[in-house]
């Protein structure tokens, strides 16, 4: 008994056991005889029913009731069923013998009555019901036809048992071999048949019948052969299966084969979609296969899962649809995705990278805004004392008249100054409202948290980007993929299609630029010289402008000390003017300089960014210097005001109620109370004003520089003496570097200022939001794509690095002011304290248990902190070192892979060339070989012939190989041609030396199945097939 068959039976055993509990055991057995095959009835199925009685008894055959072969085994113990199965197998084996001789009846159209009749009969015996109705029916029909045969057969069963057992044990091995060969043959037949189908021009439907006919004789022959062998071994009298009447056993081998065939058909059904056939053919094949499978499966009782399967498929589809919808939803949730995609498709990824950066900034600012708005502004508005109750919350009397003027508000003084937007408005009450909200603490923590969060996000993004960059992508098929996979067949909308065309063109252009950069091999010395020169020039410019700024700032400080009133307009605005002039001309200068360098545009952009960044740092420097001066001035002023305050208070008390000092303090209108200068609010105002003016400048530049220019160029081109569009003014390009830097510096302002102006993130949100729309519109409407559209680096870590730097720079002054400058005495949440951070220790004292304060003071002991810092530094150093080594290893591996791929490719190409040359050689020898092929009728002959051919092949390989040794990779290439690589390279032309194969693999029109290995004669597993065996 072959292994497969055993498996099959044991598979059935599960059914067996379950039913044993019910008292009956039934097994469906199916088999196929070669005879049946011939008649196109592939199957005979019958039932073995085993009744389990409670009485003790030996296994005995039941009386043959007219429709079934029923064998009754008496078992009271289910464990012993296993033993019975073995006997059962023998039984089945015998039954196979039995049915060979019986001609089957067609069973396609069977009446209902018959079925119901059968049903009745069966239910009497078995409880296992409806699912197998069909099988039962089949079996019964056939049963009836062959009762005569059965009788005879059963008499011989006892003898057969022995024989069958021996047989199964002794030559299982040989059978397996045979089976394998049979499979191979059938597999071979199938493809060739397919090929022929394809060959036929019509390809429609008719293929099937013909192939069927072709197949049958072959199979018949094969089976005959098998049977013959069987016969010899068993030394039994049997005739060929051609004759109807005589008995021929269906062996387990055939059963197994049958099973395999069912599996094959099933696979065919499952993979029918994969076949590049016409629909009609597919339908035909499908129908046939389904019929086949249904017959057998139905008999086996495996078709039961059909409903469940259908349900599963449906659910999978639903799930897929849901997933896709969810994906769509997620993309729809990404703000401005479509806008950015559109821009990317027209202007390339470099311009899009700015907008992506802008969007990322917007996200960050949203968080910052949420923090300040939710934890500082809203609580103050809801629970703090309302406007007008305190001097710090009231506009002073002197400003009251102009407080609501637009000019004042625009300048963020007047009413705006005494509002929740600025530091000064907040009260130093420790807790506010019924929630006991710790306002000063919250204010402080939000200020620190904003900066900490920004650090975290920037660094995390950088790390992630670095990861992505390290991964790298496979660019070996860059252009091919662009060409063959870039068009999205889903596009069904003309606008989208236009965008897609544009984006494909852009991406091609980008790739071409990269390619040209790769190819560019120029005078390296000249380039180097030019680059050094350019850097020198840029440095000179930077140094010059730096000195100019320094000079101007010093001068303005001198002016300020002497009093600005003595000087004119220029002296007063000198710093601003110089700064803006530098900001206007230096970038252009850098642009000119960078054209010297001849860098790839992406690298050039980085240089440009770096240089302008350095220039802007000067801007920042002057700004901070000016601010510090002002703070110092205000602090001086504060001292005077404080002194005046005491005098004023004393005069107040003295003037009104001099005699009664214990009386409650008189009510003075808060507007009349004298104020300190409140330098924090002043700083906040400065930042807000700067942000606003920056925004205005940007917008005005966009509207004038881009929009009006575009309008002018577009419409005056009709009546101008030269071509405006391609000539001088032309349309503007999108200024990536300027915009990115503007964004970054603006963000620096936000970080610096948000501590003193909690409303700043809100204003910045507005700015980013509007500038997103305005710039998107401006780009699409008035800009032209860059001359050389280039691809942005996949991670914008350069932007991030600059942002991180600015973040660092902007935290410095903020932290300095918080830590070392005393807060104003009469405004803001920290008034009355000597330093702002004292709010922490205050909270620790009042709101936490005393032990916590102790622990904290111990923890902040320098003896603990210093070792901790040391430890951190060490771990950072260690991690850095390991990451570096990993990176190196990564790079090494990548390099290796790349070189290997290149080598492979080279080798392939070389081999192909060899093959071609060899083909030319072999064309001469071909007739001879074919002749020898025809001569060899027997096995040996062909074997030898093939051997000869292979020898020849080898020699020709060597001959071809030797010239190649002189150039190219040398001996390696020669060696590998015989090694593993040899089987990979398919020289399709060798196929010419093959005997005329009916439509082999690798020929055009053949369904693609195994592209890598097809068409190659040497390593093909099906090569050593014994065609002569058929003859």
């Amino acid at each position: 008994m072959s292994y497969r068959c055993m498996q099959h039976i044991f598979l059935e055993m599960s059914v067996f056991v379950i039913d044993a509990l019910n008292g009956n055991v039934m097994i469906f057995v199916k088999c196929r005889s070669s005879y049946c095959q011939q008649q196109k009835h592939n199957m005979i199925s019958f039932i073995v029913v085993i009744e389990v009685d409670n009485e003790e008894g030996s296994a005995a055959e039941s009386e043959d009731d007219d429709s079934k072969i029923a064998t009754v085994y008496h078992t009271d113990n289910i464990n012993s069923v296993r033993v019975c199965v073995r006997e059962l197998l023998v039984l089945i084996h015998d039954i196979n013998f039995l049915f060979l001789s019986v001609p089957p009846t067609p069973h396609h159209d069977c009446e209902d009555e018959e079925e119901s009749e059968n049903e009745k009969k069966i239910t009497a015996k078995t409880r296992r019901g409806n699912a197998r109705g069909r099988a039962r029916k089949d079996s019964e029909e056939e049963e009836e036809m062959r009762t005569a045969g059965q009788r005879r057969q059963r008499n011989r069963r006892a003898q057969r048992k022995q024989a069958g057992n021996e047989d199964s044990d002794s030559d299982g091995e040989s059978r397996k071999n045979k089976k394998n060969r049979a499979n191979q043959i059938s597999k071979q037949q199938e493809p060739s048949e397919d090929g022929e189908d394809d060959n036929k021009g019509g390809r429609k439907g008719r293929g099937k019948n013909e192939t069927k006919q072709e197949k049958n004789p072959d199979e018949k022959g094969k089976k005959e052969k098998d049977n013959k062998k069987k016969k010899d071994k068993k030394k039994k009298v049997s005739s060929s299966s051609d004759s109807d009447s005589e008995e021929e056993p269906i062996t387990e081998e055939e059963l197994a084969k049958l099973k395999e065939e069912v599996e094959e058909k099933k696979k065919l059904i499952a993979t029918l979609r994969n076949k590049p056939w016409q629909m009609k053919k597919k339908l035909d094949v499908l129908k046939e296969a389904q019929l086949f499978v249904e017959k057998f499966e139905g008999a086996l009782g495996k078709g039961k899962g059909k409903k469940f399967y259908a349900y599963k498929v449906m659910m999978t589809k639903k799930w897929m649809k849901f997933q896709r919808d969810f994906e769509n939803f997620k993309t729809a949730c990404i703000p401005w995705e479509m806008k950015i995609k559109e821009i990317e498709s027209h202007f390339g990824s470099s311009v899009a990278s700015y907008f992506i950066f802008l969007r990322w900034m917007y996200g960050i600012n949203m968080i910052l805004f949420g923090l300040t708005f939710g934890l500082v502004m809203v609580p103050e508005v809801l629970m703090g004392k309302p406007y007008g109750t305190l001097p710090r919350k009231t506009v002073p009397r002197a400003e009251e008249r102009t407080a609501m003027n637009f000019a004042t508000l625009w300048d963020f003084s007047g009413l705006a100054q005494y509002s929740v937007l600025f530091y000064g408005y907040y009260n130093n009450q420790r807790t506010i409202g019924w929630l006991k909200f710790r306002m000063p603490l919250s204010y402080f923590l939000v200020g620190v948290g904003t900066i900490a969060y920004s650090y975290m996000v920037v660094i995390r993004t950088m790390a992630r980007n670095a990861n992505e960059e390290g991964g790298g992508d496979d660019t070996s098929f860059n252009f091919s993929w662009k060409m063959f996979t870039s068009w999205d067949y889903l596009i069904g909308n003309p606008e989208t299609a236009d965008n897609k065309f544009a984006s494909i063109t852009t991406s091609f252009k980008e790739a071409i630029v990269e390619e040209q950069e790769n190819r560019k091999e120029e005078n390296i010395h000249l380039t180097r010289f030019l680059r050094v020169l350019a850097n020198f020039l840029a440095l000179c410019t930077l140094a010059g402008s730096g000195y100019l700024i320094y000079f101007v700032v010093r001068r303005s400080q001198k002016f300020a000390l002497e009093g600005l009133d003595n000087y004119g307009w220029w002296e007063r605005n000198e710093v601003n003017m110089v700064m803006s002039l530098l900001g206007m001309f230096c970038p252009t200068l850098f642009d000119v300089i960078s054209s010297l360098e001849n860098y790839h545009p992406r690298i050039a952009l980085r240089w440009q960014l770096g240089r302008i960044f350095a220039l802007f740092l000067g801007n920042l420097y002057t700004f901070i210097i000016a601010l510090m001066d002002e703070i110092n001035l205000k602090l001086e002023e504060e001292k005077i005001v404080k002194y005046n305050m005491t005098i004023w208070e004393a005069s107040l008390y003295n003037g009104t109620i001099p005699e009664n000092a214990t009386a409650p303090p008189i009510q003075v209108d808060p507007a009349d109370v004298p104020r300190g200068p409140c330098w924090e609010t002043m700083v906040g105002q400065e930042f807000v004003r700067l942000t606003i003016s920056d925004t205005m400048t940007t917008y005005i530049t966009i509207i004038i520089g881009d929009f009006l220019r575009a309008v002018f160029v577009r419409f005056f081109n009709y009546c101008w003496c030269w071509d405006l569009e391609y000539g001088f003014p032309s349309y503007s390009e999108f200024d990536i570097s300027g915009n990115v830097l503007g964004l970054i510096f603006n963000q620096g302002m936000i970080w610096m200022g948000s501590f003193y102006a909690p409303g700043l993130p809100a204003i910045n949100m507005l700015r980013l939001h509007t500038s997103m729309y305005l710039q998107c519109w401006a780009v699409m409407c008035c800009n032209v794509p860059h001359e050389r559209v280039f691809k942005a680096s996949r991670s914008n870590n350069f932007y991030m690095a600059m942002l991180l730097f600015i973040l660092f720079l902007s935290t410095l002054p903020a932290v300095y002011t918080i830590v070392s400058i005393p807060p104003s005495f009469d405004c803001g949440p920290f008034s009355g304290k000597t330093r702002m951070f004292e709010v922490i220790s205050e909270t620790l004292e009042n709101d936490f248990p005393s032990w916590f304060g102790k622990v904290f003071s111990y923890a902040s002991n320098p003896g603990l902190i210093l070792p901790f810092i040391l430890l951190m530094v060490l771990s950072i150093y260690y991690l850095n070192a390991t990451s570096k080594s990993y990176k190196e290893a990564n790079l090494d591996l990548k390099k290796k892979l790349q070189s290997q791929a290149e080598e492979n490719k080279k080798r392939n190409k070389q081999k192909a060339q060899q093959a071609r040359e060899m083909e030319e050689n072999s064309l001469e020898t071909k007739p001879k070989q074919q002749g020898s092929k025809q001569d060899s009728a027997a096995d040996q002959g062909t074997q030898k012939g093939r051997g000869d051919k292979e020898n020849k092949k080898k020699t020709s390989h060597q001959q071809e190989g030797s010239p190649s040794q002189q150039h190219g990779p040398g001996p390696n290439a020669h060696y590998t041609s015989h090694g593993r690589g040899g089987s990979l390279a398919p020289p399709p032309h060798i196929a010419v030396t093959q005997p005329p194969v009916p439509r082999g693999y690798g020929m055009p029109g053949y369904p693609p199945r195994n592209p890598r290995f097809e068409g190659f004669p040497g390593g093909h597993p099906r090569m050593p097939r014994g065609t002569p065996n058929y003859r």
Partner: protein
Amino acid sequence: MGNKQTIFTPEQLFYRYRDLAPQLVPLSYIDKPDVKLPYELIGSMAELKDNPFRQRIAEVFSEDGEGNMTLDDFLDMFSVLSEMAPRDLKAYYAFKIYDFNNDDYICKSDLEKTVNKLTRNELTPEEVCLVCDKVIDEADQDNDGRLSVEDFQHMIARAPDFLSTFHIRI
């Protein structure tokens, strides 16, 4: 894209087919009428009309090679371009689509046509030439200066977004 039905049944496809020319296509196919829709109708379908390769698609899938499709061809086309179709099958038909001159190889003229269709002739001839050379250089395994089916499949098997782009939803 979002509101389109993604899994289509043959019935729906039939109605789609019939909607293209209700006067030509009968409602019942029991007696197997021999109906062909001309390419003009097929190419004007919403799913195809913006596709630069629509003519090639119709030609490849139609039995007569001229873009006139029977219902079977129509079903065939959508089955290959459906999401469920496997990569190999899609690659095979993609190859046929890009093989403009039907010689079973994608040669340089085919590539040039493809590029020009993809970019609407916006690249200069030199750029097109460069691109085609690069493609052949990348994908041609046996160095015969053109892409065979095997080359194509080898190349497309690694493409990250071939499967996601080479299908049509109805």
